[in-house]
């Protein structure tokens, strides 16, 4: 009787599975576990996560790692996924000239044009000119209202047509002034407002967004711009779309332009040599890639963003494999169009502008990963026999076959963190396989950039968990519209916020992004990556490259655990009459642990 462990080191997760084999060759699965991979896949740093996974698994059956007789390590496919994002356009404001934001309570409605008048300098103002009064938070709402009332009434009255406040006091001021004007508040960088320049302000009606300042001709009308000047304010108008209030200044040297960044070209070296510029967009890049046929390598134009990115990825892989550098090749990329909210340089209130961008996942291939070294290190550290056994895809297929209701021939789609792999196993047990760039990590990156989160960790949480909006202290509305009521009041920190429903309770999303928007971005990111890749991968391994020659697809890997990706794929595959579903390894493990299970199973085959 002996304990056999199978270990699968993946790009992001390391999995362990332990089985007991009796002398007469009977195998019983005992336990399994998974933990995050330490270091890049295929490096000695992986040893930590392997030991950790084994410890976790053995602890579940009250045993020690030292009880294991044999550890079988996957012959990890020498492919590593990496992702990068490149913006294609950039908006630059050379002189501060706009404020567009969504204060929760602006006051008044409509638009006004006038000369900026700082409240400290009100004595310089003369009757007959339209003014927009600006007051910093040093001036209380009572003071501002009193000043406005004093100067706009009686003999020599000033004409104040609008007010800009730094403090959140627009309604307070409005309630105290006698002539109603549009008021914008919560303008943080009011100190940057220049005195004396012409400005236009607009506050939208309740429930609406601004109309004049989000329209180039509207700005031109209000500020009296020429055709040439109107062209230069177009990016301002664009970035103000959807705002509830805005200020646009006409500064003499003010200039805004949209630059198209030299993104560089990608070279596909395949059956055909194809060159494509990154700014052609994802679709054209992917078409070019498929036209290139069997790809030997992909490179980028030197000294451009994409060129540097591909060099960086290649270099990362070069550190793993110290054999000849020339053996490292980028064999696949997945390009995805995206929009990234980028901080406009020179803006007054931290405004962002949606810039066009392309997200890229690349797949790097080398001859062989130094798995043998990992095995040796592991063996000496644990005092256990460690063997590198079996090709990853074959092991995954073997594991996937333990899903109830499957039989050969069978296709598996292994959706992990770094890559999407597909394998077709024929009735005779022959395996055809492919590795595609782009999986869970690219999805996280897309979510992070499109929502402007600036934090990969929360992007990953958004990917993993469904959302809800806490509508009262006693109930929340799930993203599918369902209401959930709770017995004990929800922590006020979550009140009115969008939260993630995790197994460990609620996680609050700090950014004020509507739930619907997050859902849409999340689903779109998953669709762009996984649906595209599932079709690409399966078409590569399908007999005659025809999807109709595949009858069953088992989804395995970390991303198959996702709460919506498998359903998305099932819907897409329904048209091809393919039976497709989330694997359930050994009838109990769900889509995870396929490779580790396969490694334990294959031990039986080797014994006999």
């Amino acid at each position, binding site marked *: 009787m002996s304990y056999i462990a199978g270990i699968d080191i993946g790009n992001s997760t390391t999995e362990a599975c332990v089985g007991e084999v009796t002398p007469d060759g009977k195998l019983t699965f005992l336990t399994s576990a998974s933990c995050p991979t330490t270091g890049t896949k295929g490096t000695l740093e992986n040893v930590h996560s392997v030991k950790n996974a084994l410890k976790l698994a053995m602890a579940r059956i009250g045993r020690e790692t030292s009880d294991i007789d044999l550890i079988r390590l996957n012959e990890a496919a020498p492919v590593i996924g990496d992702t990068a994002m490149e913006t294609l356009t950039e908006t630059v404001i050379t002189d501060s000239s706009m404020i567009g934001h969504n204060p*929760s*309570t602006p006051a008044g409605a409509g638009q006004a044009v006038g000369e900026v008048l700082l409240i400290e300098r009100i004595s310089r103002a003369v009757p007959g000119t339209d003014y927009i009064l600006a007051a910093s*938070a040093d001036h209380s*709402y009572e003071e501002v209202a009193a000043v406005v009332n004093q100067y706009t009434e009686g003999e020599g009255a000033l004409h104040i047509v609008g007010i800009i406040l*730094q*403090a*959140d*006091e*627009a*309604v*307070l001021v409005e*309630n105290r002034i006698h002539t109603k004007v549009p008021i914008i508040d*919560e303008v*943080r960088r009011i100190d940057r407002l220049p005195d004396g320049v012409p400005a236009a302000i607009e506050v939208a009606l309740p429930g609406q967004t601004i109309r004049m300042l989000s329209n180039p001709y509207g700005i031109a009308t209000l500020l009296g711009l020429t055709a040439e000047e109107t062209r230069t304010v177009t990016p301002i108008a664009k970035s103000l779309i959807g705002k509830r209030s805005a200020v646009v200044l006409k500064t003499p040297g003010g200039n805004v332009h949209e630059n198209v960044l030299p993104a560089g070209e990608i070279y596909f070296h395949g059956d055909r040599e194809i060159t494509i510029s990154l700014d052609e967009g994802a679709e054209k890049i992917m078409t070019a890639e498929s036209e290139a046929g069997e790809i030997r390598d992909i490179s980028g134009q030197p000294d451009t963003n994409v060129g540097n990115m591909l060099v960086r990825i290649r270099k990362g892989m070069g550190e793993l494999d110290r054999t000849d550098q020339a053996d490292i090749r980028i064999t696949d990329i997945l390009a995805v169009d995206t929009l990234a909210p980028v901080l406009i340089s020179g803006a007054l209130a931290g405004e962002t502008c949606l810039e066009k961008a392309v997200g890229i996942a690349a797949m790097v291939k080398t001859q062989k990963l130094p798995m043998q070294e990992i095995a040796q290190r592991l063996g000496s550290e644990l005092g256990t026999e460690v063997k590198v056994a079996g090709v990853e895809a074959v092991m995954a297929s073997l594991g996937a076959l333990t899903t109830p209701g499957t039989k050969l021939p069978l296709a598996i789609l292994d959706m992990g963190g770094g890559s999407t792999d597909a394998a077709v196993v024929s009735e005779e047990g022959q395996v055809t396989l492919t590795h595609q760039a782009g999986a869970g990590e690219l999805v996280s990156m897309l979510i992070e950039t499109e929502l402007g989160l600036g934090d990969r960790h929360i992007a990953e949480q958004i990917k993993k968990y469904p959302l809800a909006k806490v*509508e*009262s*202290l*006693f109930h929340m509305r799930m993203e599918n519209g369902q209401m959930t009521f709770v017995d*004990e*009041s929800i922590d*006020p*920190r979550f*009140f*009115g*916020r969008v939260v993630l429903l995790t197994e460990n309770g609620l996680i609050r999303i700090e950014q*004020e992004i509507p739930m619907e928007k997050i859902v849409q971005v999340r689903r779109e990111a998953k669709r762009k990556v996984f649906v595209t890749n599932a079709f690409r991968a399966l078409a590569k391994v399908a007999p005659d490259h025809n999807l109709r020659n595949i009858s069953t697809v088992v989804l395995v890997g970390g991303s198959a655990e996702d709460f919506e990706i498998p359903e998305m794929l099932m819907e897409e595959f329904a048209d091809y009459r393919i039976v497709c579903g989330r694997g359930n390894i050994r009838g109990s493990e769900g889509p995870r642990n396929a490779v580790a299970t396969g490694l334990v199973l294959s031990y039986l085959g080797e014994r006999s």
Partner: protein
Amino acid sequence: MAMVVKRPSIFIYTHEADPAVLKEVCAGIEEEGVFYDIAEMPDECMLKLAYKAARDSMLGSGIGIFGTATCLKMRGLEKGKNIESYLHPDKRQCRNVGANSARAIKKLPFKEEYGI
């Protein structure tokens, strides 16, 4: 004491409230555009005042101010739980309590820091 309810409003129950605190709390509510009513009560505890204010307010949002001690409560919250409370709130915190009592009704996230 019985209040004549004319319109949906946030109730502020006070007991010898500090005028500066009360003024800023009211400004916070006003900026959010919600009505409020103030009543002097005999209770000498901000928690009790807030509890009764929330209970009596048609909107279910109430503030108790005893001296400078200020507490925001919503109807239905368990005993001993409140949205926020301060013994000696500064100007910002007073504004926040007012704004949050209104945001509770509007179902908007609470302000945690009164930023400018």
